[in-house]
């Protein structure tokens, strides 16, 4: 969620009863504005919160020019120091999915992860992971699978740079009811023409991302229109604690994740 609009957006937050408190918003706005200036970000977004046993992590995203490839993630536990999250490695991305222990709130803490799929004597079976790496990997997992934007919110310019569209006026009512109108914020994983072939009103500058209606299983996304049909909410069953809201016919939209950073692997049983 855009840091400078948090006061407006707080009414739309709807994750497991979470409400942003006045103090949190004030702290975020002061510290993140300074972070934005230091790093010359064009957009600064509050990404969410990851619960820890001792302290909670707050995550922010800074966008410089390219809204997909140049996203920088920052974390903090005290709102004074924002640390840059390292790039997630594939190995840790996998390990963070099978790690059972909760986050502690201390980035230097090391945990041991047991991969039960491997044999007893395999040296790879038990691996060490630093919490900082785990945090980075978890966030990168969530971003890949659950971070979404409305169609048209991000546009690809002719030079290949993806920018946050300044002329996004929002989805219309009927459009907002379709899962097809929401796209994953990640480098596209399907073939480039998948989206273009499946919709009649395709637009090369918008439909370069994967739409979420292709996700498996059907029903893992929960789309509802609330406040008498003026706000569309997206929730992922895979990542309980994630939400995306979009006010119909306005450029207002935001993503938030508040949770313990665990992927819910029980989804096939739930639906």
């Amino acid at each position, binding site marked *: 969620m855009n840091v400078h609009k948090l006061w407006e957006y707080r009414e739309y937050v709807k994750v497991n009863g*979470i409400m942003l*408190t006045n103090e949190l918003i004030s702290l975020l706005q002061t510290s993140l504005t300074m972070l934005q200036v230091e790093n010359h970000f064009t957009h600064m977004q509050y990404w969410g919160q990851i*619960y820890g046993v001792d302290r909670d992590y707050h995550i922010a995203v800074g966008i410089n020019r390219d809204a997909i490839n140049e996203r920088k993630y920052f974390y903090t536990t005290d709102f004074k120091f924002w640390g840059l999250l390292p790039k997630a490695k594939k190995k840790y991305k996998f390990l963070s999915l099978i790690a059972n*222990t909760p986050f502690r709130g201390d980035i230097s803490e090391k945990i041991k992860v047991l991969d039960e799929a491997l044999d007893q004597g395999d040296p790879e079976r038990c691996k060490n992971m630093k919490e900082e790496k785990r945090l980075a990997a978890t966030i990168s997992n969530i971003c890949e699978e659950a971070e979404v934007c409305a169609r048209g919110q991000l546009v690809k310019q002719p030079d290949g740079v993806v920018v946050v569209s300044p*002329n996004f006026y929002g989805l219309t009512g009927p459009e907002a009811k379709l899962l097809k109108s929401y796209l994953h914020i990640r480098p596209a994983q399907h073939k480039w023409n998948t989206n273009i072939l499946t919709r009649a009103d395709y637009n090369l*500058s918008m439909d370069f991302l994967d739409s979420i209606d292709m996700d498996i299983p059907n029903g893992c996304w929960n789309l509802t229109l609330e406040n*008498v049909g003026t706000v569309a909410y997206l929730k992922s069953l895979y990542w309980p604690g994630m939400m995306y809201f979009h006010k119909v016919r306005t450029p207002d939209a935001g993503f938030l994740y508040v949770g313990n950073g665990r992927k819910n692997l029980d989804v096939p049983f739930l639906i």
Partner: protein
Amino acid sequence: MSKTFLLEPEIIAATENVMPDLNSDLIKAKNFLKQQSAATGDSLYDHLVDMVQKILTHKPPDVVDNFEQFSWEVKEEKLRPNFDLLNDVYLTPPQLELMRTMDDMFKLVASKSQKMEEVGEEEQELDLEEESTKPRISDVIDHNYYFRQCGYGLPESECYALYIALNMLTIKEPVATVRFFGKIFGTNADYYVAETDLTIEELDRRIREFDMKDMPGEGEGEGQPEEPDNEPEERKEILGEGEEREPKTKELVPPKLPPLPVSTWTPEPPIPVERPGQGVNKKVYWVCTSLGSPWVCLPDITPQHVRVARLTVRVMTGDLDAEIQSFPPFEGTERHYLRAQIARIAAATSISPQGFFTFGSGEEEEDIDMEEAGDMNFNLNPFYQGHTIKDLVDPSLGYWVHHGRHILPQGRTIWWNPRADMMDEGEEEEEENLPLVEPETGPALFSAVAGDATVAGAPAWSAHVSTTLTSSRALALLRSKLWPGAVAYANDGKRSECMYVGWGLKTQMPNFSPLQLPRPQTEYIIGPEVMEMADPTFADEEAYRIAHLPPPPPQEMPGEGEGFPEEEEEEED
């Protein structure tokens, strides 16, 4: 094309002018732009005019970067159908239906409150009686304010409508107290859940109804053990048919079969349901999916519902009559499942600071009687003074206690002894044979939260202070990890409340695994008849034959020699 070219006066002028001229060039270019496309009948000239006009009136920033998109939108607008042609059809806003139900609700509550005012003015002296019958509604707006201070709660827009909806519940239904329990998300609609105590008359009525139902219920209980008796009879019949057929097909004497197996499984004796107003059915829950629509009463649940709900995971759909597909099978629809989940959540996450509630109403003598009855009542403690915030957020969590009754593995809050009936009938015979059933026990009411089972090595609740900057406004917040979405707050005064907003899913470490099917029972007693063994090979048979050869017959009896080959043949068969 040539026709339009000729008709326009400028063009006629242009043809007259032979010399190269800026004007004629302009007109030629303009003509080119005015060419209509064969497909849409639109011309670039018109499109550019529309574009420029729109850009100048709307003044969007940085059009040049998004020119393509902008041009697309202009074209799209042109293709939009014009609804004015349809004889002034008025399209009602989609909100209408919801607003109608809301309007009905507001009218109902307004008329009621007006009546109350009139009555109140007339009979102010009789106010005491009036108050005793007036339902108590917990102040959602007030509690929500505090929850929001802690970073939880409902949006303002929902909160007010919810409070009015709770008022409506008290007007329409026979309830004595109302409390907002929370909100449970569903895939299609969300449930608002209200927790109520019924009025004494309604409760009595329900208990009577329950007792009436219970009588035939006992009959069913007796009927069940009879069923296993019927089954073997049927089997015998089948067996009988089989025996008849065998002699016809085979001429050999039927081999002696071991007796057919009889299932030793007997259904567990049904655990009696707790009567309305007791145990898991102590409170009555009402749900609605949109504020303003009538509240629906959730049915009372049986212990079996709780037990099955514990073994399954499922998200609500938002339809109370949706089917529940689970193993073991769940008897009932989503309304039973929802009720069971609410019972589990209420039992696990109802917490309050120590001393907030007390047994009875403060009169000591009463307490003892209630405890003997096994189902203890508790009330707000009038002498509660509050704890300091520092104590409340202490990581040991010693200052918080549960006020939700623990549900035993049996699915009841009060343990029911399955042997109780037998003990009465024949104590002497049974005691030796049957193993004694150990009563299931759980943490007592008002036991400390600190004693809760841990979630993945961390305590089940995490405590937070709402603010670090202004300690005078601080509140203590407890967040459950076992039921994500369950929270409770308390201030250093006399306020505390808990709420649940979430999917109704319990954290299961590491993940949910469905109940395994029980191992099949052994059908036959293992013996030589049913054991599998390798067929004898030719060599084995040959060795057997040679070993069992009768001693060479004496030469004196030639008549018996013919018999040998026949016997050999038979053996080989």
